[in-house]
């Protein structure tokens, strides 16, 4: 298997990470060597194996659906790069 530049561009779009030509070439090289290493898994026949979903052999606990944090609006927006005291502010989406 080989990951070409077109695939790198596709993954970068899905990842929301912009890449220029030079970075794409470097990434293609890196990812190809990593996937070559990962392909080793194909040696194993896993047709009859159930995938592992959790290492912890316990069932998740239920809890009542109650609000635990109240009036923390200030805390929530405190670290945002831009806000207007009530909302996060982002570049204009609708004209």
């Amino acid at each position, binding site marked *: 298997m080989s990951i070409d530049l077109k695939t*790198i561009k596709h993954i970068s779009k899905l990842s*929301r990470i*912009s890449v220029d030509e030079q970075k794409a070439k470097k*990434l293609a090289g890196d*990812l190809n060597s990593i996937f070559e290493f990962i392909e080793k898994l194909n040696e*194993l026949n*896993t047709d009859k194996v159930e*995938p592992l979903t959790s290492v912890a052999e316990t069932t998740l606990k239920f809890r009542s659906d109650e609000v635990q944090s109240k009036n923390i609006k200030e805390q929530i927006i405190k670290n945002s*790069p831009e806000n207007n005291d009530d909302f996060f502010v982002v570049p204009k989406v609708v004209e």
Partner: protein
Amino acid sequence: MSNITSLSLTSLVNNIKNKKLSSEEITKAFVDRSEKSKELNSYISEDFSNAIDKAKKFDKNPNLDLKLPGIPMAVKDLFCTQNIKTTAGSKILENFIPTYESTVTQNIWNEGAILLGKLNCDEFAMGSSNETSFFGNVLNPIDKGLVPGGSSGGSAAAVSGQLTPVTIGTDTGGSIRQPASFTGIVGLKPTYGSCSRYGIVAFASSLDQAGPMAQNVEDCALLQEVISSYDKKDSTSIDFKRNEYSKELTKDIKGKKIGIPKEYRIDGMPKEIEDLWQKGIQYVKDCGAEIIDISLPNTSYALPTYYIVAPAEASSNLARYDGVKYGFRANGENLIDMYEKTRSEGFGAEVQRRIMIGTYVLSSGYYDAYYLKAQKVRKLIKNDFDESYKKVDAILTPSTPSSAFKIGEKKDDPVSMYLNDIFTVPVNLAGLPAISIPAGHDASGYPLGLQIIGKVFKEQEILNIAYAMEEKISFKNKITDWWIK
């Protein structure tokens, strides 16, 4: 007392309880040494003057019933600390000031400890050498040109260099045990679910675990006792009976069955690692334990599995860094452009690489071939351990396939960097506890570690084995203070 910083945690606690030392004296000693140790680059953020104020306050009204009374401690910068900058070693969180405290650090402060500062680490804990940190690499106190290991590299260097009595790190694929091994200290990765993940910057949620790093096994047991707790805020936290690890610590391991997995004897492993392992086997025999040869047949598939599962989870966890809610934002022409530039400028190369791998293995058309396949192999790896644990109580292996390597040596070769974690990664995939203890030196005098892997929730068992071995090994770290200004 002339050399406070060389005392163990246990000894510092006793000195405070017997009123031979004050919290202020101890805190000032560690602050002073940390100030002189800037060259190591262990700290990302310092909180020294606050620490001394808190120590003075403690001394005015000391509560000596606590487990860490007035003990200063620096922690890995992956733990959210309320009102204190938490960066995860990343530019994208360069100015992030959490409004809440992680459960693990809260447990530490509740027992009387005092924050010294936040310790350097690989960006988002992704790395094995601390070279991926936005804040520069950490130097290994053992020798100037060496990496301290990673991702808890700043933590390991700070304990080894005596800038903090003990610390906590996080371990997703070896990030506590490998740097502990590289710097000649003890590091424990607890059972998945033992320590709460609440307030720890997430990397790969099914693998991440916090754990103690210390100069010796007794200190490690005491800190584990403090940090491990059931926490409703972490849905994967497990409600099991936790031991009083330090009080129950014993060197009596007579009759324990210790497994030696033949698959860990990998091709090209240096002879000094093999020799160290044989020495370790002799030590546990001398302690009255029984050695049993075992097989973990799927060991060689652990790293490829890890490099699917961990990036997949990371790509999902790191989707939250979008330049909107918190963290760095780059300007863009529109919303999507802003996202893409923010993430491209805010994340370093290794983090971007892992997000891309993770996105690819989870993407439409590839999910079954990679992610599902990896989850199936992960099951086989866990089954291997389950089978072995029908015959043995614990497993003894080397911690790493080599001693600490040179700065820059593996930086441009991701796969060779990943191979460092070959002995530690299977433990995370299976959710088991494991401890690395310093066990010898290589020809250059660099420390080498041995790893003891336990059954789930059997931290006490591996701590006891480590405690018994520690006495036989009587390891001395060769540190010359070359960096002290």
